[in-house]
């Protein structure tokens, strides 16, 4: 077992690739009337080109704020410290504290983000074409006609029917699923190195959810874009992601390849999440009723415990866990956890691997 903080390259078998995003000690806190809220604490992770990384955790665990901080989109009362380096064609760009003019050259072109609520994420007063072409004219200096042409091509790419007519429509004329496709098309226009999708399917119907996820999955092969897929639903990451980062209380609890998350989870919180995730039975029914839930409450971010934030809810917690915060350590090349407990063997998982 290698106990090292050095994060190894996950792209096994490939030559050494440098990460497109390296995050070190990223911390986000908010000033509020009731004192500071530490939403994200000392996050360390890397995203490699072309990877699809799932970020899962309960609502409020800091998933969104981590990536909003990276995009420079925190609310006014929020502040990020630490480092987040975007590597574009061998050149490093420190995103934390970057001035707005330089940041705006990267946002929408080298990295882009789509959001949970497609109904409100597009400007209701501007035509789809205006909103899409704006990106191309801004970042690629395209003329109107060329931009329209490219926008049309991307609407086709995200499988929007009658794309040409859609260009001249306003958002309210499109369904939620269509709007999210427009958002995806818009975010890919400049072929960014990094696409962050924050719960892109949460607000959609189940059937539409599947289509949008499938689309993201397929697009990944067309572009070499690294995708971060934020979700509170472990089921969503299964079909789409290569790697998964589990967050709890504003920290990373576990990082692993997607198979290891499902079949060999090592953090008690990941195990709890899995046990409370509904699975489809062979007959298509799911058994919601007898699902165990993780006991206790999510941590209070204004008053985090001195030790592991999960300790109060953890069956394996020791005195040590109450006193010291476990750091994220890689115990093999692709698997890291922030937990003092001994490793778990696969068979101890409640409803095992199926």
């Amino acid at each position, binding site marked *: 077992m290698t106990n090292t903080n050095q994060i190894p390259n996950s792209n096994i078998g490939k030559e050494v690739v440098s990460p497109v995003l390296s995050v070190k000690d990223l911390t986000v806190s908010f000033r509020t009337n009731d004192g500071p809220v530490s939403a994200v604490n000392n996050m360390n992770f890397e995203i490699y080109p072309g990877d699809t990384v799932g970020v899962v955790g309960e609502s409020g665990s800091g998933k969104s704020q981590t990536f909003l901080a990276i*995009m*420079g*989109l925190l609310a*006014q009362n929020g502040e990020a410290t630490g480092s987040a380096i975007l590597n574009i064609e061998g050149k490093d760009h420190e995103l934390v504290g970057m001035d*707005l*003019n330089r*940041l*705006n*050259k*990267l*946002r*929408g*072109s080298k990295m*882009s*983000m789509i*959001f949970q*609520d497609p109904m*409100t*994420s*597009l*400007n*209701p*007063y*501007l035509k789809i074409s205006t909103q899409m072409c*704006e*990106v191309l004219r*801004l*970042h690629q200096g395209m003329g109107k006609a060329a931009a329209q042409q490219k926008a049309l091509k991307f609407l086709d790419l995200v499988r929007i029917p009658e794309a040409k007519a859609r260009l001249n429509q*306003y958002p*309210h*004329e499109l369904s939620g699923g269509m709007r999210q496709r427009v*958002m995806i098309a*818009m*975010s890919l226009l400049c072929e960014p190195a990094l696409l962050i999708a924050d719960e892109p399917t949460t607000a959609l119907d189940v059937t539409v959810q599947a289509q949008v996820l499938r689309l993201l999955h397929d697009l990944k092969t067309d572009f070499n874009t690294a995708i971060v897929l934020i979700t509170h639903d472990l089921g969503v990451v299964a079909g789409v992601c290569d790697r998964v980062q589990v967050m709890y209380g504003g920290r990373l609890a576990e990082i692993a390849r997607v198979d290891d998350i499902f079949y060999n989870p090592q953090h008690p919180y990941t195990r709890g999440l899995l046990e409370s995730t509904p699975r489809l039975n062979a007959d298509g029914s799911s058994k919601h009723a007898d699902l165990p839930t993780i006991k206790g409450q999510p941590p209070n971010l204004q008053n985090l415990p001195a030790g592991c934030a999960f300790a109060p809810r953890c069956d394996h917690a020791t005195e040590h866990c109450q006193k010291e915060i476990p750091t994220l350590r890689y115990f093999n090349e692709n698997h890291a956890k922030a937990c003092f407990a001994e490793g778990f063997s696969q068979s101890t998982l409640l409803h095992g691997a199926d």
Partner: protein
Amino acid sequence: MVRYFLSRLLIAIPTLLAVITLSFFLVRAAPGNPFDSEKPLPPTIRANLDAKYGLDKPVFEQFTNYVGGLVKFSKEEGSWLPTVTLDFGPSYQYKDRTVTYFIQAGFPVSLKLGLMAIAIALVIGVGAGSLAALRQNTWMDYTVMGFSMTGITVPNFVVGPILQLIVISILSATAVQLVPITGWGDSWKQAIMPVFVLALPQIAYIARQTRGSMIEVLRSNYIRTARAKGVPERTMIIRHALKAALLPIVSYLGPAVAAITTGSVVVEKIFRIPGIGTHFVNGALNRDYTMVMGVVIFFGALIIIANLIVDVLYGLLDPRVRAA
């Protein structure tokens, strides 16, 4: 949209009728008579005058006569459509002039005053409100909000005379030359004071509104999307935020026209401007029934038309309304 507009247009007619009815009886309910004066007229002359203007008839008959006489159709030789003329009758005070004459003479002045006030209110109000929103909770924000609180609460019949007093007494005679405090039409400088006093409450209100809606819009998801796209701050505000933030202001323009119209009555009197408002005040003081009625109906129609225009404007700006 078209249907909506037509229905609004239809509602305008009963609204105007209600305005006419209400003001007719309110004016008659006021004590006194157009021909009352310090020195009582001999009873025979008085009776003759009453008979001439129909004031000896029962009030209800006077009302039907008045409404019946308001709109006149005349058909000219060779013309297809009849010409419609509005006739507000003769002024009781200036017996050789019609009310229509005074309205025609005063309207260009009042219109100029009102339009300048609205334009100034929009420019300053929207500018100051946006600035306050973008610099929320800074001294700039507090200053704008402080001023606008004052502008809303202090009425123009207080602000006007106070400003006049300041210019006369605290400043000097040269100040009066720079910023004249009465009159109209001799120099553009005469417009400064009345336009400002008339616009002040509207500046204040529009600034508050703009600040509020701008803050709300800047928090919205589509502004976050614009930022995520790398849209520069200035473009983001102008292209993405301003339109949504200004829609409430557009719908406020209707009430603003009404407020400016009523405000102009006071302001014209204070600054001795020969607009409709001055004639209205003089008419009211002299119980010049037809003059008061004529101005009220004219203002009523003006406000109704302004509101119709605002509705159309709103529909043109908001694609969701336009489609409906």
